C-alpha cells in the first residue's frame, strides 16, 4: 500500500503504475455520472453520435450529492453503489475512459474491460460524504441538467481520497483483501 498522486487526464502509464491497495489522491478535473446519465451516454455512442463530454483519459465519479446549502460548492458527496453502472462501463472504457470511482464490486465484464483497455476502478469511502465534499473545489453542470442530482457535473478536485480496488493487472482488492484477513 503506497500513497500516489493522480492528475487527470490519465495515460496508460499512469494507470499501469497503480496497484490494488494503493491510496490515491486526485487533483484536477473529474466528472460525475450515475445510471441515468450512463444510459444516455451509451445510447449516443450506439447511435454513432458525439458525447457531451470527451471521456478520453478521464475519471468518472459515481455520486448523487445532497443539495448544496447556500455558500456551499456541492452538498455531501459520497460514492454510490457501482454495480448499477456495470452494463455501461465497458463501452465507455472502450471509448477511452480511464478511471471510475464508486463503491462495491464490479461485474466480470467490467473487470475484463479494465484489464483490456488499461483502466482502473477506485473505491471512495462510502458514507464519507462530508469529508469528500471538502476536496471538491468547483462544481458545474455540463450535461443533462434535467436529471437534477444525477446530471453530469464537472468537478475540480484537490486531493480527492480513494483506494485502488481493480487495477489493470487483474488485481481485485475486494477478493484479495478479504482472503488475507479471513480466519
Amino acid at each position: 500500500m503506497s500513497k500516489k498522486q493522480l492528475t487527470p487526464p490519465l495515460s496508460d502509464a499512469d494507470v499501469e503504475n497503480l496497484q490494488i491497495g494503493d491510496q490515491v489522491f486526485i487533483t484536477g478535473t473529474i466528472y460525475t455520472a450515475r445510471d441515468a446519465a450512463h444510459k444516455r451516454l451509451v445510447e449516443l455512442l450506439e447511435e454513432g453520435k458525439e458525447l457531451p463530454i470527451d471521456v478520453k483519459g478521464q475519471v468518472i465519479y459515481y455520486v448523487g450529492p445532497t443539495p448544496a446549502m447556500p455558500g456551499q460548492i456541492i452538498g455531501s458527496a459520497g460514492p454510490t453503489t457501482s454495480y448499477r453502472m456495470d452494463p455501461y462501463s465497458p463501452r465507455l472504457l472502450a471509448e477511452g475512459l480511464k478511471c471510475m470511482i464508486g463503491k462495491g464490486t464490479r461485474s466480470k465484464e467490467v473487470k475484463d474491460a479494465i484489464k483490456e483497455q488499461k483502466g482502473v476502478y477506485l473505491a471512495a469511502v462510502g458514507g464519507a460524504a462530508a469529508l469528500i465534499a471538502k476536496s471538491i473545489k468547483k462544481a458545474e453542470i455540463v450535461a443533462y441538467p434535467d436529471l437534477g442530482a444525477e446530471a453530469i457535473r464537472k468537478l475540480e478536485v484537490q486531493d480527492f481520497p480513494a483506494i485502488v480496488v481493480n487495477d489493470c493487472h487483474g488485481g481485485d482488492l475486494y477478493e484479495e483483501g478479504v482472503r488475507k484477513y479471513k480466519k
Partner: protein
Amino acid sequence: MRSINYDKIVMEMAKLCRDANYFLGDDVKNAYDRALAEEESPTGKEIIEQIKENTEIARTEEVPMCQDTGVAVVFLEMGQDVTVEGGGLYDAINEGVAEGYTSGYLRKSMVEHPFRRKNTGDNTPAIIHTKVVSGDKLKITVAPKGAGSENMSSINMMAPAAGEEGAKEFIIDAVRKAGPNPCPPIVVGVGIGGNFEKAALLAKESLLRPVGQPSKDEEIAKMEHEILDKIKRLGIGPQGLGGTSTALAVHIEVYPCHIASLPVAVNINCHATRHKSIVL
C-alpha cells in the same frame, strides 16, 4: 387527557430529521474507536479514520454525514392519555419530514410508485410504526435508512429444528453475501420469532439500541457476542476491502412464535447508524 399541538410535532419532527443526519450519536462514535483499536488492516484503519473525520466535519459544519439521507423511518410511542390538537398525528409527522428534508438540504430519495418511480420531491411519505403505551407522553424516534444497507436485508422462515445454530448460520451468511455493499463496518440488526412481519420489525427496532449494548436476555447476549466474533473472522473489513472490523455490533431481539415456525430476519445498518429521539 393531555394534548400536544400539531405544529409543535411538525417542528420537532423536522429538527429530528436534520439532527439525525448531521450529528452521529456518541454510541456509534465510541464503537468506531473500538474498531480502530482492533483493526488489523492498514487500509481498514485508514478507512475508519476517514469515517471518523467525516463524522466530525458533519457535526461541526452541520451538513449531512452521508449523501444518502435515506427513507425517514419513524417510530412512535404514543401514550394512551395524550391527543394531538389541530390535526392528525401522521399528517404532522409527514409535514415535519418534508420540512426537515427541505430546510436541512437533505437528499429526497422517495419515489411515489415502485415502478413509475417519480420522486415525491420532499422525501415523504415517512414509514411510520406506532405503539400505544401507558402514560401521557409521545416519544418520536427517527432512523433515516439508506438503500445501500437496507437492500442487503433478508428474512428466512426457518424450521424450528434449525435451532440456534441454523439461525446463526443464516445471519452470518447474510453478512457474507452483503460484502462491501452496506458500507461496513455495519451494525447487524436481527429479529427472531413472532411471524413474518414481526421478525422484520424486531430486526429494525434492534438497530435503535445504543450500538454495542448487549441484549438483556443473557443467552441472547451470548449469541450476539458469538455471531459478532464469527463475522469479524469473515475478513470483509471496513468497506469490504479486507480487515477485521466488519461489524461494530450484533443486536438481536426475540419474540414468542408459533409451535411450527422460527422466523429470522436480518436488517443491516451501515456505519452511518443514525437515530434520534425526543419525548414530548
